[in-house]
């Protein structure tokens, strides 16, 4: 087990290194120029040169990379070129907000999708199974911006029961909870089907195994078969799909953040690209990569722990 974790950590570190190279190369290849982004076209060649020197952009690329990577390892993320404040300060609040949104969504979506997925697997191909599948697939087929805007129109503009945007809600806990309802609902619609289908498929796979038939013949109840005999063996893929969606929630919810004006990481990334704010962009991109790596690593470990055969054999 320890060697597995160690091996996975090492692999994760290598992935992160490769990702950092790609991120750095990608940001260098962006068309446009940070001096234009900062100074506008009002810039004279002279002010431009002064700025390039101040930012250290006149040195060779590999020197810039190693310096950046070195500082990054020491926890110094640099100064945002456009906002003139430490990147860590910008990240601090945004990262927290993103985690709040991801966590709230996971708390809603995991129990819900497990419940629905198990229900489908317990009564496969029945009326219940088909309706759950149809509804969840319908919801996933609607793009997030449509769902989000319809929810805002109904709940905020017509009925005035919930806020239309989240940004104004960061004043108190009660505000925050109300502000989270609609974004969480939108995200739930977006990932519910994925997780329900995965749970259902993993369960049905296990349910076809001979030992389940055995349990059935012994007269075990349906709920006991599903929860006690089948679920533990189906947990691996389910945990993996949760981890995958958690990674998505950390890095890929730009659209929802834009619709609800939610100050999270996704929008920060988009703004950083628009502004050619390279230190900020690099930090956000690496954090997103790291989130994916950490979550899949955790998922692997948990999946192994949940499976006695994997836990002891190797």
């Amino acid at each position: 087990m320890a060697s597995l974790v160690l091996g996975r950590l090492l692999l994760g570190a290598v992935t992160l290194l490769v990702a950092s190279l790609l991120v750095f190369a990608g940001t260098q290849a962006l068309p446009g120029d940070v001096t234009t982004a900062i100074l506008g076209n009002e810039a004279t060649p002279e002010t431009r040169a002064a700025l390039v020197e101040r930012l250290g952009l006149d040195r060779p690329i590999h020197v810039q990379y190693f310096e950046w990577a070195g500082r990054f390892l020491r926890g110094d993320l640099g100064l945002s070129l456009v906002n003139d404040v430490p990147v860590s300060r910008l990240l601090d609040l945004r990262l927290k907000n993103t985690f709040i949104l991801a966590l709230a969504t996971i708390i809603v979506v995991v129990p819900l999708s497990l419940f629905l997925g198990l229900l489908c697997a317990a009564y496969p191909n029945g009326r219940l199974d088909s309706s759950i599948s149809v509804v969840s697939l319908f919801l996933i087929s609607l793009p997030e911006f449509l769902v989000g805007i319809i929810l805002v129109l109904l709940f905020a503009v017509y009925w005035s029961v919930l806020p239309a945007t989240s940004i104004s809600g960061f004043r108190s806990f009660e505000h925050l909870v109300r502000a989270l309802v609609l974004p969480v609902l939108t995200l739930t619609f977006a990932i519910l089907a994925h997780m329900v289908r995965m749970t259902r498929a993993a369960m049905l796979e296990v349910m076809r195994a001979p030992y389940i038939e055995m349990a059935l013949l012994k007269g075990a109840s349906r709920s006991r078969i599903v929860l006690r005999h089948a679920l533990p063996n189906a947990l691996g893929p389910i945990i993996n799909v949760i981890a995958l969606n958690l990674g998505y929630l950390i890095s890929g919810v730009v659209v929802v953040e834009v619709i609800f004006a939610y100050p999270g990481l996704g929008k920060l990334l988009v703004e950083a690209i628009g502004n050619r704010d390279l230190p900020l962009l690099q930090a956000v991109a690496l954090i997103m990569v790291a989130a994916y790596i950490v979550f899949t690593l955790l998922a692997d470990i948990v999946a192994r722990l949940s499976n006695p055969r994997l836990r002891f054999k190797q």
Partner: protein
Amino acid sequence: MAIDQGISRRSFNAALAGAGATAAAPWGLARAQAQAQTPRRGGRLVCAFNDGASEVLDPARTKGQNGIGRCCLLYSRLVDMSPQGQPVPGLAESWEPNAAADTWTFKLRRGVQFHNGKTMTTKDVVWTLERVLDAKTASSGRALLADIAEIKATDDHTLELKLKQADADFPVVLTAYQAMILPEGHSDFLAPIGTGPFMHSLHQPGIRSVFKRHPNYWKSGRPYVDEVESFAIADPVARINALLAGEINAMITVEPKQVERVKSNRNCAIVTTTGPRHYVHGVRCDTAPYDKVDVRLALKHAIDRERYRRLVLGDYAIVANDLPILPSNPYYNKDLPQRAYDPDKVKFHLRKAGEENTEFELHISSAHVDGATVYADMARQAGLKLKLTRYPAENYLDVAWMKKPFIISGWFGRPTVALALQVAYVSQASWNETFWKRPEFDRLVADARKTLDQAKRRDLFFEAQRMLWEDGGAMIPVFENWIDATSSKVKGIEPHAFGALGFYYWDGAWVDA
């Protein structure tokens, strides 16, 4: 048709917008009545901006509406701009040129207090202006103030500015937001200090900022509201939703097609006025076939401006006459006839140029699509073939602007005729996007600039505009309104020709109970 990324980049930096305003009549009337009420003290203003591009609270280096708007709350300028575009006293209570108009003396207001209680003197002003002019500051305002040769404090309240060349309009230059006054030596912009109506209370870059009332503001009794909160909601639909749902009570930039949504809600009001914002459809006069004046005239006659105005901007615009100056400006050449849609003239000029079958290629950004499509269609009906080539808005300025022979560029306009012509139409202008070079025109503008005699100035400016109108490479169809919105409870924001929501002069804003 929104002002695209590229345009805002350039014109925000300019901050000096056009001149003169003709307030939209019915709305202006309603506002006038609202202002007749007695302002109420207290309440909060919660404003959503349209971008979070830069949230730097350093006036010399900020940009974008969010940054400029917040700086307008925190700081004051030596010279303010009236809603119609005239320079009016700000921190300087009066000014006077010498006979040659190349040295200007400014008298500072006495007893103005910074947020930290310090009294403002010429020391602060000199430090501020020198900081903007210092190349190390990398301020976009440096180019704007470049004419200043020497800054001298005669005493604590008298300032003398020597210019490199005479400028009869010089005070307008000091209305640039980059030249807002800071206390000497203070450059911590996470704890900003100014003389503006509101002081810093909370600043979470990229999230939100809160400002509270400055009790010792230099306009006594003002400001009226206790607190201003501001943040960016970049998505135009989300911004309007927040206003309709009552979460915010002010917002900037309503797209023309969204105006009806706001109007249909009784708790919300549109704030709009004519401004000098315009799109230049510009050709390079040094490149064939656009080097022929007949081709340029054909392009200028191939658009029905009145219909364009209605179709693209839903009436929130006025027709323009290929000049970058608002018709309400006293130096605007009214003698030139309005250029009209005329298929016969289009065909005549194309035949004369020998370009009847040429397909002209207009290079546009994805932000220009609505307007350009309408123009291309009108041109086609007049017998002029116009092909549109699209670029992403993000790098339009880098790949197309001033490179391709036929482009569209957006301008917020300039407050004076001299600046409007100098910035893009004289031969040596760094943004001479039409590559139109006429030494005689340059001479007219330069002479007018230093002429203090109004009648003589008018003649020189009229002649320069006539040259540009007859020969220049810019087709300017309309001037677009500023369209913003507030809750109907918010009063006292007077629409301003040069900026969104009263150009952020919010010391007179108040919230009705």
